[in-house]
């Protein structure tokens, strides 16, 4: 187990390098630089700025500088927010996104899995229909439509919840962003759980368990739950990636000071170091989460062996 984790972590290094090269190349191909203001600046000032940030050296050298910094945990200074380093910006913003993302993931599992199982158990009943059509709605209504409607109803008209803002992650401020972010994933998880539960319930060993006279409750929790959860667990990797991307929109709608906002702003402002920093950070996070998910999978499915 330990050897496997180390091997996977080492395997992630070339991936990270590739991602860094790709982002670095892309941003540098882009026309326009970080110091292109509306007003042209004197040539000496520009030259000095370029020298300070090593922008006057060959790309390969620039990449070398950058790489050695990243290895030491230094993503360099932000070009736009000059008083902060990228590491500081990420450090400030990431806890917000993390809290948002983890809450959304937990809600997706806590609501989606039971809903899917119930729908499978009561197949073709009214309840099944309600769960399935609600989840279909959750999948086809974009978050950026749902979230503003929620704000209008619960924030502006009913005044139950704050309209926007983070307020240090106070619960009332979290409710709407988390629900809006998790909804599509609640839907996916419910549909997946329903499908896999139906399949598991048809299998021979479940029939055997029932034939032995085991109460339905035990059959479900002892025998059916684990295999029915397998597809959901393997969906967790893409789900985490999706929630990370989705939080970009959610943070924008609710004005939350998270990482997603820095990414979009950084890309539009051509804040090279910020965009690279955030991309690399997210890529590392996703790689890590994928390893965690793979390990978790083996706990659930004894047929899978870690190599």
């Amino acid at each position, binding site marked *: 187990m330990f050897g496997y984790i180390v091997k996977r972590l080492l395997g992630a290094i070339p*991936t990270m390098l590739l*991602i860094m090269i790709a982002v670095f190349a892309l941003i540098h*191909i882009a026309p326009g630089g970080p110091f292109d203001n509306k007003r042209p600046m004197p040539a000496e000032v520009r030259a000095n700025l370029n020298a300070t940030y090593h922008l006057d050296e060959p790309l390969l050298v620039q990449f070398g500088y950058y790489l050695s910094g990243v290895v030491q945990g230094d993503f360099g200074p932000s070009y736009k927010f000059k008083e902060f380093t990228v590491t500081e910006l990420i450090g400030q913003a990431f806890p917000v996104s993390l809290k948002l993302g983890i809450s959304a993931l937990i809600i997706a599992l806590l609501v989606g899995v039971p809903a899917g199982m119930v729908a499978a158990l009561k197949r073709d009943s009214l309840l099944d229909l309600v769960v399935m059509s609600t989840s279909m*709605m959750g999948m086809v209504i974009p978050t*950026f*439509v749902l979230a503003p409607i929620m704000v209008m109803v619960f924030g502006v008209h009913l005044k139950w919840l704050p309209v926007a803002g983070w307020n240090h992650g106070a619960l009332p401020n979290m409710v709407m962003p988390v629900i809006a972010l998790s909804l599509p994933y609640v839907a996916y998880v419910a549909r997946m759980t329903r499908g896999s539960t139906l399949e598991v319930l048809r299998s021979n060993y479940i029939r055997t368990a029932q034939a032995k006279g085991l109460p339905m409750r035990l059959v479900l929790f002892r025998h059916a739950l684990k295999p029915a959860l397998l597809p959901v667990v393997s969906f967790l990797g893409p789900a985490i*990636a999706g929630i990370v991307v989705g939080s970009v929109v959610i943070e*924008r709608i609710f004005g939350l000071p998270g990482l997603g906002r820095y990414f979009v702003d950084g890309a539009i402002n051509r804040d090279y170091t910020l965009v690279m920093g955030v991309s690399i950070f997210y890529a590392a996070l996703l790689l890590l989460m*994928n390893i965690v998910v793979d390990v978790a999978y083996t706990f659930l499915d004894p047929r899978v062996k870690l190599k």
Partner: protein
Amino acid sequence: MSESGRSLWQDAMRRLRSNRAAVISCWLLGAILLLALLGPSLSPYEYDQISWDEMAMAPSLSSGHWFGTDAVGRDLFVRTAIGARISLAVAFIATTVALLIGVIYGAISGYVGGRVDSAMMRFVDLMYSMPFMFFVIVLMVVFGRNIFLIFVAIGAVEWLTMARIVRGQTISLKNNEFIEATVAIGASPLRVVLRHIIPNVLGPVLVYMTLTIPGVIMTESFLSYLGLGVQEPLTSWGVLVSEGVDEMEAAPWMLLIPSLFLAATLFCFNFIGDGLRDALDPKVEQ
């Protein structure tokens, strides 16, 4: 696929036709497609015709603005139809890009097997773990907002799952007798893959393709919401919806109408996809 007798495809079609949700979805989708093609020529207005006297007018039959107008007085019926063109075009082209890359990649990986297969699949795993949406965003920012680029970028993200599905199918196919027979006759590997493997994996591919389209339409509207989609005055459903969100209290139809079209289209593709999956799965034969 033109065997005599009842082929798998004829069977599937028969089963699909008895699936009411899928059939209704097909008709609805046809209607939306018709609106996209003919809509703009039915209305006297142009999609980019700004009219300061007719800002944010509610839908009415008498004014000729059947779906109302937007914040600068452009006719929403025509804009919804143009938006349908763009959204559906993005969806079909991006899905085709994903299909081409995914099927060829997956078929080669599965058929060749061994080292090549594990290297190719490791590459897919690698790509999976990347925050691809971010690359698309960076691409948009770097190269400007080019519709063509949106197609390709989204397609380049969506091919991975396709490759996995095709590979799995290919592996289970390649040890069948008919493939062995083809190889024994002396067909080249390329011919085996193109003529015998790929046609036989089309079923699951078709299902996945139908289910990819709604995902792509969502991605496009997501990009549009961030202000990275198609450029004014052109429009897409994503652009219209995000414009509508800004005005939803004063002019709810600006949000409602495009959202309705977007949601209906996604519903349709999902139902058709589910219907196709049931129809093509021999296990559910009753």
